[in-house]
């Protein structure tokens, strides 16, 4: 099988796996990184949302061969390390994760890693464009939460944005 390399949460990794295998299964089954969750496999529920080079992507929809050796993949497990030390909160986590705790967002929690990763990407993009997160930006987050925590997700993003 071909060797596939990329940077995962700051470390270079190499796996022997067929080209067409989706990144989600490379992460979960080959690399034991289980923060990104399987919910639908067709990029609808978005429970697997992670980052590629700082931008949101859904590993269930991306074949491993599309990821380049220099691509930096960040999963929820690697998110705290992307924040500077003084940005991190009382639990040593990324400000968005801290905001999630502060707003008591999670219920079952299954979609939350994906929600947080989507939220961070939205804030980063808004900041790179030089504005605060808009309502329209929030509407663009299509991650499904069946427990119905949407109200708090939106509140938490507003809170987390302030410390990012």
């Amino acid at each position, binding site marked *: 099988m071909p060797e596939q390399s990329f940077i995962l949460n700051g470390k270079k990794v190499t796996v022997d796996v067929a080209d067409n295998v989706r990144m*989600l299964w490379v992460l979960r089954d080959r690399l034991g990184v289980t923060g990104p969750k399987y919910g639908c*496999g*067709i990029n609808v529920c978005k429970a697997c949302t992670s980052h590629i080079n700082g931008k949101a992507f859904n590993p269930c929809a991306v074949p491993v061969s599309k990821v380049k050796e220099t691509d930096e993949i960040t999963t929820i497990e690697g998110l705290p390390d992307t924040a500077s030390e003084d940005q991190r909160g009382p639990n040593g986590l990324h400000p968005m994760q801290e905001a999630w705790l502060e707003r008591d967002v999670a219920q079952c929690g299954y979609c939350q890693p994906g929600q947080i990763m989507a939220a961070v990407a939205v804030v980063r993009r808004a900041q790179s464009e030089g504005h605060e997160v808009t309502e329209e930006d929030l509407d663009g987050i299509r991650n499904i939460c069946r427990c119905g925590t949407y109200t708090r997700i939106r509140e938490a993003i507003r809170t987390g944005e302030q410390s990012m």
Partner: protein
Amino acid sequence: MSAAAPNSSAFEYQTADCWEEAIKLRALWGEGAKLIAGGQSLVPMINLRLAMPAALIDLNPIVSSGPWLDQGELVIPAMTRHRAVLDSPLVATHFPMLAKAVGLVGNVRVRNRGTIGGSVSHADPTGEIPCVVLAAGGRIVVQGPSGMRSVPADDFFLTYLTTATDLDEVVTEIRLPVAGDQDGWGFDEVTRRFSDFATVEVAVSARSRASEEIPELRVVLGGVADRPLLLGEDILEPFRRLGADPQAIDEVAQNAANSISPESDVHASADYRRRLTQVLTRRSLAQAVGLG
């Protein structure tokens, strides 16, 4: 690697940084090749195994310089992102219907990635962009090994996800006749859920004509057939007979609904689609001729 996810078939992945390169790759791979721009339609299809390309030719390296005006036409390079169309003052001024329709394409993420050329090439019969391009009477510029040609929108959309583009051709530009001050337009759609595919949509352009009182109308229905449907002269007949008045609008809307044979699916019955066609045609027409 798990049975818990539908794996797609294996495919080659190649990038093109100019149209010539894209055309060369397309010729090389032939029928099995799929061009990918924003990937907002194609990627989900690959995931669902609705598309199983042998090769994916990524057009993203091709730089787009954004819409411009050229001899009475608004020119939109194929790789223009929906977001850029939405933000373009040229589009807002010269083709407000496109601005409105693009605002309804998918959601923020889809608009940030998805491209105009991708939407037109994908030819989803529920897509907003094909409807508008057809209503506008635009042209689609395609390029192949033997050069460039331009295809009128009327002849471009053939059936589900199929266009008049030859296998060795790629869509490089969309050209829309600039709307004049006296021209009107209307666009309306119904979706079951925020940012979902339209159940039915209607796009209308009303071009004023110096010689005639009645504007030239182009009315396009989306989501009711295998392609965006341009209504024929017979359906628009009440306008010729009655002029641009509410009675004519009602009759055209009724004719439009009677003329189609939409399908039923999990989201809407054929009857409801027909009903929406009538309502949305009436609303869009009324907006286009200033009676809304």
